[in-house]
């Protein structure tokens, strides 16, 4: 096998064992790797009855075929399983430094099942795997744990770590790499916590990567790396990070304000934008392994109420989630909230959104001090958010913490009083910081059809509507108007295929904007030897998209669940999108036709599945 190693680690934590297993080569060709291959592994070996936090639940981490390749954007991996936040299939992507180290150790992925008797870690040193107890680490934050790992196993050791939120089974706990990179969404930190697994550590002794065509790959790699590095997007990201265009986003109505109740706040735009972060707090730029874009921020706030020592700084999503969403324009507060979430191991998008929902509920008296143990939840009160609310969520140490640790959908179910009207979710996952009403109507469609829920990284619809995609080889030549439904279903059908390719090959969506379709095909063929045509590659993407829907079907998801919260569709009352209506039903109906999805069941018919080489899967769902 090329690129991939064909080997995974299968850890039965109840038995305290971890063994090597090989996967059939056809799995890789059919499902690529990463999120796609994880879906196939779950389909074959997972339990559809097991609750997400039950010991028998599977947690699957997979690399794509390019992990280990010295190319900007490909040092990512995917983690997948049944989400404790949503209850159905999901996955999450993370950059950083873990993916290449795992590949160099000889593995494509790790499957975790069972539960350790006492808190422990998995240590991978080349092909030696140990399961070790670390009772004394339980209760530590991510920062302290990561520092301990560095001290004990050396600076070259790479780790995935959970914080107290994961230990306490908060539904949106995340998994952190080097305190800076997160498997943020859908709560897989809680799944790790439910298995009593504090960390996974990997150390390799050599950089081993065996491609199918080494010379051709090296030449293509150099060409692509230059193209990626020199692109306007990369330069802007390098200079001012992922929040570089926050100011522009505010002016088009893409940046949500006060739980999506407003679409414009000019004063906030300049205060929170990436160039302000650069000017005020940036000390260094940082990058995932081998990435020359270096969009990550290192910040320091030496003084003031939100002072923090030099360390990982916030991404756009964190800045908006703990800034505009909470009615705050205090950039220092977003940095401190981001650092705290990283340390506690909380997904910043769901945490910020759930708190924003709670602030609106408090403002409208649906949530009172009786349910918050006396804590007042007021817009822009960042002291309370940082000192009281986030710790209480991570430790589930109060009524308020317990309520908000559930995520906004369940919290709304718990308090009722019309508070579900203020949700900003799709399939139980809080929407990212891109408002479909201004950012692009197609986002409403792709949030709704995404297998994990409201998600802007499941596919490149956000970039398509922005104008940052051009794929004439597969028919994407549309000049989309973000504030229209025209061609959005057609675009979404291509977007879900490209998104599946990106998330299964585990490529960064910023970096791969520069990769043309024929270059993608060459990359797969030179690295993994798949010997694909453009059609083969796109079919693999569609196959993964369908398989993810089939998984959700078996978890009880139907066409009627492909929705977004009313709040995300109601016409804005201000800003660029003021008064514009999203024709959601029309887009969804057209997408269902184009994607050949059954209008009730939400999955393709038997013939469509058979035609795309999902015959055995078709036999299960179409008995």
């Amino acid at each position, binding site marked *: 096998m090329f690129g991939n190693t064909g080997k995974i680690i299968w850890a039965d934590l109840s038995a305290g064992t971890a063994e090597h297993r090989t996967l059939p080569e056809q799995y890789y060709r059919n499902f690529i790797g990463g999120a796609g291959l994880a879906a196939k592994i779950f389909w074959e070996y997972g339990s559809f009855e097991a609750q997400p936090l039950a010991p028998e639940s599977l947690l699957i981490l997979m690399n794509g075929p390019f992990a280990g390749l010295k190319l900007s954007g490909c040092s990512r991996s995917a983690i997948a399983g049944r989400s404790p936040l949503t209850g159905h299939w999901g996955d999450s992507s993370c950059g950083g430094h873990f993916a290449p180290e795992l590949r160099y150790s000889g593995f494509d992925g790790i499957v975790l099942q069972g539960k350790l008797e006492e808190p422990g870690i998995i240590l991978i040193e080349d092909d030696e795997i140990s399961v070790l107890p670390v009772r004394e680490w339980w209760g530590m934050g991510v920062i302290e744990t990561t520092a301990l790992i560095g001290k004990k196993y050396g600076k070259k050791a790479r780790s995935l770590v959970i914080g107290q939120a994961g230990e306490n089974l908060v539904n949106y706990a995340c998994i952190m790499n080097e305190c800076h990179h997160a498997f943020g969404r859908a709560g897989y930190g809680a799944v790790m916590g439910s298995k009593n697994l504090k960390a996974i550590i990997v150390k390799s002794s050599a950089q081993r990567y065996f491609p199918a065509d080494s010379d051709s790959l090296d030449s293509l790699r150099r060409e692509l790396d230059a193209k990626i590095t020199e692109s306007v997007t990369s330069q802007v990201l390098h200079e*001012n990070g992922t929040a570089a265009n926050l100011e522009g986003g505010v002016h088009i109505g893409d940046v949500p304000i006060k739980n999506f109740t407003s679409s414009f706040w000019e004063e906030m735009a300049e205060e929170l934008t990436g160039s302000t972060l650069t000017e005020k707090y940036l000390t260094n730029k940082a990058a995932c392994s081998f990435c020359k874009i270096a969009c990550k921020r290192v910040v320091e706030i030496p003084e003031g109420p939100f002072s923090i020592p030099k360390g990982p700084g916030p991404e756009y999503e964190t800045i908006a989630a703990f800034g505009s969403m909470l009615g705050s324009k205090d950039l220092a507060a977003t940095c401190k909230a981001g650092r705290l979430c990283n340390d506690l191991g909380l997904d910043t998008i769901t945490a910020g959104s759930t708190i924003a929902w709670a602030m609106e509920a408090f403002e409208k008296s649906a949530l009172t001090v009786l349910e918050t143990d006396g804590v007042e939840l007021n817009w822009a009160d960042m002291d309370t958010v940082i000192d009281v609310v986030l710790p209480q969520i991570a430790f589930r140490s109060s009524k308020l913490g317990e309520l908000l640790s559930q995520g906004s959908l369940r919290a709304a179910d718990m308090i009722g009083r019309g508070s579900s009207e203020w949700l900003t979710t799709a399939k139980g996952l809080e929407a990212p910081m891109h408002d479909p009403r201004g950012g692009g109507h197609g986002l409403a469609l792709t949030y709704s059809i995404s297998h994990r829920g409201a998600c802007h990284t499941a596919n490149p619809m956000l970039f398509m509507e922005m104008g*940052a995609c051009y794929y004439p080889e597969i028919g994407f030549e549309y000049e989309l108007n973000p504030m229209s439904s025209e061609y959005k279903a057609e675009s979404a059908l291509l977007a879900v295929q490209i998104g599946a390719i990106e998330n299964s090959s585990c490529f960064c969506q910023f970096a791969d*904007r520069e990769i043309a379709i024929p270059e993608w095909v060459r990359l797969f063929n030179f690295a993994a030897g798949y010997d694909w045509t453009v059609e083969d590659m796109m079919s693999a993407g569609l196959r993964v998209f369908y398989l993810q829907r089939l998984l959700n079907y078996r978890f009880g998801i139907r066409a009627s669940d492909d929705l977004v919260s009313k709040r995300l569709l109601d016409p804005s009352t201000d800003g660029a999108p003021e008064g514009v209506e999203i024709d959601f039903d029309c887009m969804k109906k057209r997408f269902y036709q184009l994607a050949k999805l059954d209008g009730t069941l939400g999955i393709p018919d038997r013939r469509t599945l058979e035609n795309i080489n999902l015959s055995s899967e078709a036999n299960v769902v179409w008995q």
Partner: protein
Amino acid sequence: MEYWKDQHEPITAFLKLFEKAKQDPELSEGLKKVNQLIWFDYTEDGPDCSFHVDCRNGNVLSSQGKPSEEPDLTMSLSADDAHRSWSNKLNPVMAITRRKIRVKGSATGLLKLAPKLKKVAIIYEQALNDLNFSDKILK
């Protein structure tokens, strides 16, 4: 060229635009924040078809041709696409993606101007009217 009779017309129009933009407090401040020497290169439509704007050091100075110093940012495109762009009828991200606009140097400063494109288009329309180029206004 679809909109211009020769290579000088677009430069006259664009310099007029910047002259008027400088008089607008909001745009003038926005331009100063860009803090770069920018060369707008339309030489694919003629050797004299270009101008530059020097937004460094709190000034906004515009002039015909390539700057004598090395520009911080060069934007190369056709004079017709520039006309569409200043008229806010060309999505700049899309134009860059499709290589209609080629960018050399840091475009970070220009991001600060992106939110002001609507206003730029209004002033550009005024500039075209001032020059008796009303027939060129894009509706």
